[in-house]
C-alpha cells in the first residue's frame, strides 16, 4: 500500500503541497512520546500522532518515515509544515482518533 492509496481510501487531508505520495508503507507506529519514536519507529512506517510541533517533522525525516498522520482534525504548526515540505515527508490529517486510524491502517497492512 502506498501513501497515496491510504490518502484516497480514508479521505486524509494532505497538508504538504509539493511532496510526492508514492512511498510504500511498511508499517505503522503510534506514540506521542518523541524519544519513543526516535528509539523504536522504523523506516517507511507511518507515524500516527497528536503532536503538531516542528520536531515531529525533524524526527520523521531523521527516521525516514513514510508519512505522518495528525489525528482528531489537528493541524500542524506552520514551521512543522514547512519542515515536512523541505524534508519531503508527507504530512497528512484525519478526523479519526488515534485508535481508529491505527486500527484501520493495521488492518490494511495485515490482510
Amino acid at each position, binding site marked *: 500500500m502506498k501513501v497515496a492509496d491510504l490518502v484516497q481510501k480514508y479521505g486524509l487531508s494532505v497538508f504538504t503541497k509539493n511532496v510526492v505520495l508514492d512511498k510504500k508503507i511498511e508499517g505503522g507506529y503510534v506514540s506521542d512520546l*518523541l*524519544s*519513543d519514536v526516535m528509539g523504536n519507529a522504523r523506516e517507511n512506517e507511518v507515524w500516527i500522532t497528536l503532536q503538531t*510541533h516542528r*520536531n515531529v517533522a525533524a524526527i520523521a525525516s*531523521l*527516521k525516514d518515515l513514510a508519512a505522518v498522520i495528525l489525528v482528531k482534525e489537528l493541524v500542524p504548526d506552520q*514551521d512543522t509544515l514547512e519542515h515536512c515540505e523541505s524534508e519531503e515527508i508527507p504530512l497528512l490529517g484525519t478526523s479519526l482518533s488515534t485508535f481508529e486510524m491505527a486500527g484501520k491502517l493495521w488492518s490494511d497492512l495485515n490482510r
Partner: protein
Amino acid sequence: MVTELHFLIHGGDFTKTGSASSKVKKTLKSLNIEPKQIKRIVVAIYEAEINVTAHASEGVMNVTISEHEIKVTITDKGPGIENIEKAMEAGYSTASKEVREMGFGAGMGLPNIKKNTDELEISSVPGQGTTVRFKCYFDKI
C-alpha cells in the same frame, strides 16, 4: 580523511532541534557510511541535542568522522546531572512540564544514546554543566 563538524545548541529553543543530527546524517550519507550505522548514530545525536535543549542554557557539539569511527562530544552549560546512574534509568526524567507537554522528557534520552553507541562517557558538575562523549565504530553493529 577526517571530517569535523561543530554545532552550537541553544537551550530552550526547540525550533532548531534536529538540525545537528540532520547535518551529520547528510554528511555520513555523502561519505557512503552504511545506512544501518547512520540510523543508530542519528538517534544518539538527536537525543543528545534534545537533552541540551531541554535542560541546559547552551551547549556545543563537536563531531569527528574518521575512516573507522565517529566521535561526538557535547558539552553544555546547565544544571548538570546530580545522579548519573539514575539518569541512565529508562523512564527517569527531570524535564519540566513544558518540555513534557511537547512529548519530550520521557526519560529515554540517555538510554537511547547508550543503546545506539559503542562507547559512552558522561561527566557532570551539578550547577555547572554536563559533558557527554560517545563513539560508534563503523565496522560494528
